[in-house]
């Protein structure tokens, strides 16, 4: 009996052939590496400005930022008057990331402090301004002041095809 059991235990177990599995996984990894996206994506929200839209409650700033070829032009309501303030770029024509974003922020911070509940801003770009410059502008407008963004609701005016 003992001899028979010892004979059964000594049977060789066949080795698992992993080569086909490795081939398949290697091909799958190559395919996924080709299609992989390693960047981190985010989004920036904005709205289309509509004439006759819902009016804001209480006094409003009526902030408008024009993005021109030679810099920003910022305007806002001060009582019954509109104040216009240019924020030119250091080098003209402006590079998309060289639009004087720091100067724009310095101008907007006191306005936000005067109107802490105001969140809306209308951005009016010139025809040839690239999207990259608009993103830099939106980033500046949405920069946090305290815990909340300065002007979270960025709106664009209607535009017609040329």
């Amino acid at each position, binding site marked *: 009996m003992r001899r028979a059991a010892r004979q059964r235990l000594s049977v060789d177990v066949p080795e698992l052939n*992993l*080569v086909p*599995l*490795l081939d398949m*996984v*290697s091909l*799958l*990894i190559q395919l*996924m*590496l080709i299609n*992989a*996206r*390693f*960047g*981190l*994506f*985010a*989004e*920036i*929200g*904005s*709205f*289309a400005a*509509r004439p006759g839209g819902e009016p804001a409650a209480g006094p409003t700033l009526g902030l408008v930022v024009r*993005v021109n070829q030679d810099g920003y032009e910022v305007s806002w309501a001060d009582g019954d008057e509109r104040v216009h303030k240019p924020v030119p770029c250091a080098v003209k024509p402006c590079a*998309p990331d060289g639009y004087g974003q720091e100067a724009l922020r310095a101008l907007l911070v006191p306005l936000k402090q005067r109107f802490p509940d105001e969140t809306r801003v209308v951005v009016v*770009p*010139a*025809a*040839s*301004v*690239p*999207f*990259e410059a*608009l*993103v*830099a502008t*939106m*980033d500046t407008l*949405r*920069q946090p002041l305290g815990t909340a963004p300065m002007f979270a609701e960025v709106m*664009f*005016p*209607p*535009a*017609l*095809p*040329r």
Partner: protein
Amino acid sequence: MLAAMVDMMINLLIFLLTLYGTDPIDVRGSAELQLASSASHDPVKYAVSVVVSQKAVEVDGVPVVLLREENGALRFPDGDALGGFTQALAQRRDEAVAAAAKRGEDAIPDMSIQCDRRVPWEVLGPLLTQAGDAGFGQFRFVVHGEEP
């Protein structure tokens, strides 16, 4: 002795699979579509997808407007340039509203826009205006973001 290699490959496979599962959008970078960089770290949400590249405007992966270059500037084609875009948007809006109604929601559909960083406002502006007219509420621009 292949067990160690199999372990490594399985780990690599799992890592790659997680990359595929995180974003609800499909961004295919190319020479014609280079996204802008931003300080935003708002996560990307699912919405009707519009891609504005240097060559064409696509709605949910289907080209609806072919752009042309004139004197180094990007232009819409002659004629009813935005007809196909408006039609495609109306269809997607109806589908999005119907899907929201099935879920018992009364939602205004949003739009996710992947726009090439060099596209000028004279091309992007009319597209946003048409989208607003078609009943889309918010435009969410997809950008290269920062870690939160």
